[in-house]
């Protein structure tokens, strides 16, 4: 589950230094990845994980972000297809079990 940090090949027009805002963006993303690791983007929870990532960035910059924006950004750092899903995600929902409506639903008093 190794990730390769690859710098994009093309270098922005004037210099080697990225725009500050670009760096900010990448930093925030990497920060967010501590909560939402790439491995989780490969399993059954992936849409909610992506939602969390998107929300994080949206809040950090007070700018709209879409799930696709985030995935594109992520693509600078990870080849998601190569990332192995979290083990825990593959274990969930393995055990068949009859649906059971919890006790609280049967209480007739208004809850």
């Amino acid at each position, binding site marked *: 589950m190794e990730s390769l940090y690859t710098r994009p090949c093309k270098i922005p027009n004037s210099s080697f230094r990225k725009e500050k805002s670009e760096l900010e963006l990448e930093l925030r993303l990497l920060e967010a990845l501590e909560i939402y690791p790439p491995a989780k983007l490969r399993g059954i929870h992936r849409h909610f994980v992506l939602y969390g990532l998107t929300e994080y960035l949206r809040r950090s910059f007070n700018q709209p972000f879409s799930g696709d924006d985030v995935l594109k950004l992520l693509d600078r750092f990870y080849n998601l297809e190569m990332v192995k899903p979290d083990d825990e995600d593959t274990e969930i*929902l393995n055990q068949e079990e009859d649906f059971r*409506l919890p006790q609280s639903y049967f209480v007739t008093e208004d809850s």
Partner: protein
Amino acid sequence: MVSSSKDESGSDGENSSGNAPESNSECLFAGGEKVLAYHGPRIYEAKVQKVDFRKNEWKYHVHYLGWNKNWDEWVGMDRLMKHTEENVLKQQALDKKAGVDKNPKSGRSSQVKPKSSSDGKLDKEETKNNVAKGKKRKADSGIEKNNSAAEKLLKIQIPSTLKKQLVDDWEFITQQNKLVKLPRSPNVEDIFTKYLDYRSKKDGMKTDAVGEILKGLRCYFNKALPVVLLYQKERDQYHEAVSDNITPSNIYGAEHLLRLFVKLPELLAFVKIDAETLIRMQQKLHEFLKFLQKNESTFFLATYDGPKITEGSGKGKDN
């Protein structure tokens, strides 16, 4: 102290009737007897209502004292203990382990709060109090793996008319032996599409977040349906209706989607999500539920198909 000596016919299994070869041949508990019963990680006071000998072992139908009779069930001797001081100590030990204050509860409190933290706050104390108030939770294997995950459950408020749908749903299937007629129209996919339409008209362009959440729900639904969203009696129907290339979300509808919401907090417990995002998610999920409620008459079936399975007693607690 419980003496371990069984009476004569017990251990060697040679019974005069010849049909109970093993040591289970002895009936350990009597009808009307107050006992202690294991249920999930804890022990509860219960009363034996009836006794039966099935498949070479004694089974006891118990009613948990102070609990709604919906919880009544058949259990084997492995789940039961005599109501002795020694066993009461065991009960208390497990209560302690579960972090429960042993309140003298006179029956069940009428308001049973769902086991979750309120308002998205991660309040462990509150959750423990809810457990003490008597929310009996069966240890769902495969989903609720550890306590700490369960304690931070996202609270999903299901509107009361939808709760009633779930109870009716339970009633139709488990008590009346009926089934939802498949395939459903609208199905889950249709409902999602309608919701996106509805939201884009309301919010303008900003449906990206909602879209992602719906994708997440779809993902869960398709995986979860055959595993944890079906009542026992629906399994045959499932196998007939859903084969290799067919996804549940194209066959099932609002009835089963609603069940997903019952399980949703447990599923989401396995994903770490920051508190603020959790709150927004809660809002969005709630909005979706309100949409279901608004369209209740179009999305939900008023009646289910008559009994296809002929089972003797509709009283069977199959759930």
